[in-house]
C-alpha cells in the first residue's frame, strides 16, 4: 500500500507541463493536474508497479457555474492488489472545455466520458466514439450545466409538463 507521498512523487515525475498541486478537499486524497498532463500521469499511475491503479472507479464532471467560469473533471482511482485510492482533478476553462480521453488507458472511461460530454459538453479528444449517451441525439444543450435552460419543444412535444 503506497502512501500519499509516494503517489505524489510518482505523479510529479511524470508531469511535464505544470507542477501538480495537492487536492486538499478530496477524500480519498488526490492531486490537481493541468489538462495536458493527464495521459502520462494516467499511464504512470496505472502501470507503475508501486501504484498499479488498475481500476478507474468513477469519472465525474462538475460545472462551477458561469461566474467561476471553470469546469472540472474528477477521476476516482482504485488499486485492487494494493487496496489504495486516489483522485485526479482537472480544472478546465468553461469557454473551451477540452481534455484528452483516458479510454486508451482504462476502457471503462469510454461510457463515463460519453456521459460527461452529454451532460456538460466537455469534449474528450481522441475518444473512440463520442456521442450522446443518455439524452437523445438531437437534444439541445447540456442539462447538468448550472445555467442550463431546457428547450421549449422537442420534436413538437412540449418539454415543460
Amino acid at each position, binding site marked *: 500500500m503506497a502512501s500519499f507521498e509516494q503517489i505524489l512523487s510518482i505523479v510529479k515525475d511524470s508531469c511535464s507541463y505544470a507542477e501538480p498541486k495537492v487536492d486538499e478537499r478530496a477524500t480519498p486524497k488526490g492531486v490537481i493536474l493541468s489538462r495536458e498532463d493527464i495521459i502520462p500521469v494516467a499511464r504512470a499511475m496505472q502501470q507503475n508497479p508501486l501504484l498499479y491503479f488498475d481500476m478507474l472507479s*468513477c469519472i*465525474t464532471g462538475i460545472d462551477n457555474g458561469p461566474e467561476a467560469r471553470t469546469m472540472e473533471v474528477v477521476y*476516482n482511482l482504485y488499486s*485492487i492488489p494494493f487496496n489504495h485510492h486516489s*483522485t485526479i482533478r482537472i480544472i478546465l476553462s468553461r469557454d473551451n472545455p477540452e481534455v484528452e480521453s483516458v479510454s486508451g488507458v482504462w476502457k*471503462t472511461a469510454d461510457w463515463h466520458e460519453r456521459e460527461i460530454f452529454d451532460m456538460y459538453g466537455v469534449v474528450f479528444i481522441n475518444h473512440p466514439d463520442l456521442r450522446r449517451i443518455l439524452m437523445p441525439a438531437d437534444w439541445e444543450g447540456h*442539462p447538468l450545466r448550472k445555467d442550463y435552460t431546457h428547450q421549449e419543444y422537442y420534436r413538437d412535444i412540449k418539454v415543460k409538463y
Partner: protein
Amino acid sequence: MPTDGVQYISKPGNLFRSVPNKFDAANLRSEEMIINLGPQHPSTHGVLRLEVLMDGEIVKEVVPHIGYLHRCFEKHAENLPYNQVIPFVDRLDYVSSMNSEHAYAMGVERMLGIEHQIPKRVEYIRVLVAELNRIASHFIAIGTYGMDIGAFTPFFWLMRDREHILRLLEWASGARLLYNYIWIGGLFYDLPVGFEDRCREFVHYIKPKLQELETILIDNKIFIGRTANVGVLPLELAINCGVTGPMLRGSGLRFDLRRVDGYSVYPELDFEVPVGEGKMGTVGDCWDRTSVRVLEIHQSLRIIDQCLDKLTGEYIRTRDFDPQALIPKKIRPSAQDFYVRAEIPKGELGFFFRADGTSDVPFRCKCRSCSFVNLSVLPEIAKGILIADLIAIIGSIDVVMGEVDR
C-alpha cells in the same frame, strides 16, 4: 408549433426523424444486416435497445443504446437537501433499494463525521434488511435469466419466494419496493414486534427451496448447455472495464466490498465470498456468474441468521430505543469532495459528492452505477457469437435499466 393546450401534434415527418443508428444500412457489405433488438423486448430486461450488426446468425458488432429510462437523478439531487434525495436513490436500482439507501446514507454520514456514533442495533437492522433485499434482487436476476433462455418454471418459484421477502420488508417500512427506510443517521422506524421470528421462519423455509432451485436450474443439463463457455469475460478485461459485483467474482477474483472495505458491521459477521471456478466450462462464463449469485444467496442467509442472533440477543429491542435519535436536524457537511462506495447486488455503487459547506443541498451528486459500467462490457464480449448467446449474455450481466439510465 402546438398551442398551449395541446402537448403533441402528430405530423408525418416525425416518423422519419427517429433516433439514428451508429451503422448506416447503405454502407454495409452485402452479407451484413442490422437487427434492432428492443427497447421493448422481454429479454432486454427493461428498455435497453441493442443495434446488432449481423453476418447471418453471427454477431459482428453490438451497439447498446440507452437513456430510455433517464429520470435526471443527478439534476434532482442538485436541487434537494441531502435527506430528500433518498427516495430518488430508491428509484435507481428499484429491485434492491435498501442496498442503495445504505450506500447513500453511509456516504452522507461519513461526510458529517457521525458514522461511528450510529447505534449497533441500527447498523444490524440495516445489514439485515439489505441482505434480505440482496436475496430478492438475486431471485429476480436468476429467475428472469432462466426465463430468457427457456426455463420457465424457476421464474415462478423464485417470484413466489421473493414475495415473502417483499412482505417482510413491507411490514418493516410500509412499501413493497421503494422503501425510504434507511435514513441519514438512523432508520425510519424500528423493526416491528415479531419481525425477527417471521424472518427466522423465512430462512427456515427458503433453505430447501434453494436446493430445489439448484436441481431444476443450475445443475440442469440444458441450462449448462446454454451457459457454459458462453460470454467468457477474462479477468484482465473485466478489471480494465471497471466491472464489479458477481460479474467480477464470476471471472475468478475474490473481490467483495463488504470484505475489502469492511463497512458497517460486516467485519463482525462471518461469511464467505464465492467466486467462479469454471466448474462447467471456462472461468468467467455465464454459468459461473449465475452460480456465484446462487452461492451468494446462501451467504446472505448466513448473514441474516447472525444478524437475527444479535438483534434478539445483545442488541435486543428496548422500550426507550429510538432509531431516529441521531438523525441530524441540519445536514450541512463541511466543504469537501467525497467518494463513497458500497456493494449492492449488481456491484459497486458509488456516490461522488461535492459539498460547498454553505448549503444543505449537494453541489454535485454523481452516481457511479454498477449496471451502467457492467453493461459497457457487452460490446467487448459479444463479438463473433450467435445471436441466441447474445440473449444469454445480456441476462447474465443482470442489468436494471433504472440504474443504467438513472
